[in-house]
């Protein structure tokens, strides 16, 4: 395929208090082999060279591991491809002459800091409320394999633990619900013997913090599961619901 010329419609917002708006930019000669973020780099070089303010967007590892990159591209979290983060999205998913709409994650609990960067500290605060096990890791750490764990539980816990906390689930949810994220974090520990000791307090505290942050209520549309770069399953939300019911009945 020949290189592409594209129109980018990008959300520009000076700071958290400013009123933002969509602004159109042209980029030319974009290779289909570029990642989406590399294309954004081309745009920013262009803007810097012409003395304009570059577009602020989050990124770090650019390997789909860290969960930093975001972007709502053409109406979908991490763009039109499946099972990937924005840094893994390739320009071959688009066609020459396309207009691409690029917006930040939208949720009241994820306020815009600047342009396409949102504040995802709400996820951190939920994690601090219980997304850990209280275990002393200094000195006498015992071998992990000394605790027998079924293969099924280990696999399911590992699947839940692959959540990178990028926030695509919240961004794509029509209710801006964080239940896939919290469900994954609750499940990751609830499935393993080390996590079961604090299971009741964990789910209660994490759900309470999630509600406090102003995330919406899950209505089981399943959009989060489809858009999640790590394929976190809705079963984790069902497990969180069970865990909370169990904890509340204690």
């Amino acid at each position, binding site marked *: 395929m020949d290189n592409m010329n594209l129109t980018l*419609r990008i*959300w520009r917002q000076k700071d958290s208090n400013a009123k933002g708006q*969509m602004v159109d930019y042209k980029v030319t000669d974009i290779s289909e082999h570029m990642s989406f973020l590399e294309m954004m780099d081309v745009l920013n070089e262009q803007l810097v060279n012409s003395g304009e303010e570059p577009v602020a967007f989050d990124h770090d590892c650019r390997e789909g591991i860290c969960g930093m990159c975001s972007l*709502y591209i*053409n*109406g*979908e979290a991490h763009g*039109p491809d499946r099972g990937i983060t924005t840094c893994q999205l390739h320009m071959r998913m688009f066609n020459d002459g396309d207009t691409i*709409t690029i*917006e930040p994650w*939208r*949720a*009241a*609990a*994820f*306020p*815009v800091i600047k342009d396409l960067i949102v504040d995802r500290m709400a996820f951190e605060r939920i994690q601090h409320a219980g997304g850990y096990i209280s275990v002393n890791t200094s000195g006498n750490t015992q071998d992990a394999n000394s605790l027998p764990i079924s293969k099924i539980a280990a696999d399911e816990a590992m699947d839940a633990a692959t959540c990178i906390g990028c926030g695509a689930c919240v961004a*794509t949810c*029509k*209710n*801006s*619900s964080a*239940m896939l994220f919290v469900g994954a974090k609750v499940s990751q520990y609830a499935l393993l013997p080390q996590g079961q000791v604090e299971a009741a307090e964990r789910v*209660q505290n994490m*759900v*309470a913090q*999630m*509600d406090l942050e*102003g*995330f*919406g*209520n*899950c*209505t*089981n*549309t*399943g*959009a989060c599961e*489809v*858009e999640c770069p790590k394929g976190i*399953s*809705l*079963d984790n*939300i*069902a*497990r*969180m*619901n*069970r865990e*909370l*019911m169990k904890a*509340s*009945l204690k």
Partner: protein
Amino acid sequence: MNGFFKSSIGRKVAMALSAFFLMFFLLQHLAINLLSVISPDLFNEVSHFMGTNPLIQFALQPVLIFGVVFHFIMGFILELKNKKANGVSYAQNNGAANSSWVSRNMIWSGVAILAFIVLHFIDFWFPEINTKFIKGDWSGTMAGVEGYRYYEELVHKFVNPVRVGAYVVAFVFLALHLMHGFTSAFQSMGGTAGRKKTLQAIGKAYSIFVPVGFVFVALYHFFNH
């Protein structure tokens, strides 16, 4: 319960519990309606029992009304809370790429069902309450009708094509609501992954069979009288 029902998940569970109750109610309502096609006498007998039995009238009926009102009010409260959680809207949002239309529009199918319930109450429930509780007539009979009046009243309602049309449209919305609602209720209650396929199949059958059953009864009386 440590304020369980005040949490977001508690509210989901409350929605699901009221939904289970309403789905069970729909089944028994349909069963009685179908009797009107099989045997007018049997339909009259069962209707009289349901309409005069103190346990049903004074215990189950208030629970049912509470269930209906609760499901609607909670549905609206959750919708408003969720809208508030959205913040700024997207300039472009492709919801169809990752979720079904029915799952994203439960509030609208719900509003259509609410409008139907208003019509249904005007048609059947208010006259029934008026006869029994205002006029104090618990006989189940009517001047000019031999035996009980229920079958005659039912048939009379389904003469008007506009009303029959409204009923049919309402049940299309009920089917749409149930197509997502049935499995969603189980998911909210923590339904397990192992039974997902079976639940989806039962949900699909239920959400088609029940509304089609109600439509069949309405159309049967429309074309036969």
